[in-house]
């Protein structure tokens, strides 16, 4: 859902900007449902704008990257993060729905962690935002548990045979975040600079930094 900009039109309280291209079917469907819900007073547009703004500005992998960077520079924080992910992530101000029960799993030279949701698309929203399309695809969801080493290689991450792969299947309650290994040669970087090196895919476990 996009285009929740202001309430200047005074009618529905929504002002969708002009678009160069026609709405895609799913966008048109969302817009139609939204219009009906607003018209019948079942939806508060300000509340909806707040949700959209939250997703556009406050949720996303940048949050997870801050968590990872903090763990890299602060051993005590790292220990708390691995002990109680939800609480430690909450220390940085991130939490809420789809992140109520966070488990953080740490990559080492011997162990690589990979996160999947075989059932649907469970994902840690507060730290990673919304899942990428491939995360929701049946091929990823099935192959991540059936042949993760081959899958990872196809996605550009070839792991040596002696590296153990631990696959974590997310549930409606528990969501996982991978703590990647800190890349070599980053000793002099600040926490902020380190956060910029952390990718979304590395926190899902399909990439090594």
């Amino acid at each position, binding site marked *: 859902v996009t285009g929740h900009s202001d309430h200047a039109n005074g009618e529905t309280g929504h002002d969708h900007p002009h678009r160069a291209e026609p709405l895609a079917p799913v966008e048109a469907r969302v817009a139609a449902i939204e219009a009906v819900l607003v018209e019948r007073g079942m939806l508060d547009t300000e509340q909806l704008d707040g949700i959209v703004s939250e997703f556009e500005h406050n949720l996303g992998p940048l949050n997870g990257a801050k968590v990872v960077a903090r763990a890299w520079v602060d051993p005590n924080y790292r220990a708390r993060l691995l002990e109680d992910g939800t609480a430690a992530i909450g220390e940085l101000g991130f939490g809420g729905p789809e992140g109520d029960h966070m488990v953080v799993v740490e990559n080492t030279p011997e162990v690589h962690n990979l996160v999947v949701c075989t059932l649907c698309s469970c994902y840690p929203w507060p730290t990673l935002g919304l899942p990428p399309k491939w995360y929701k695809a049946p091929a990823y969801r099935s192959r991540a548990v059936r042949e993760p*080493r081959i899958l990872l290689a196809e996605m550009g991450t070839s792991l040596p045979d002696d590296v153990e*792969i*631990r*696959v*974590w299947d997310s549930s409606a309650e*528990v969501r996982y975040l991978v703590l990647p290994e800190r890349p070599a040669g980053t000793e002099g970087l600040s926490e902020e600079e380190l956060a910029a090196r952390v990718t979304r895919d590395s926190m899902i476990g399909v990439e090594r930094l």
Partner: protein
Amino acid sequence: VRFTSHELWGEGGEAGQTINVDLWERYLEEDR
């Protein structure tokens, strides 16, 4: 609960791989 790939897929499973599934239910008790 942690399963090895071989436990789930038999001989077709990849070596050095485990699958972790959160199966917590409040009525379950740990098998000691």
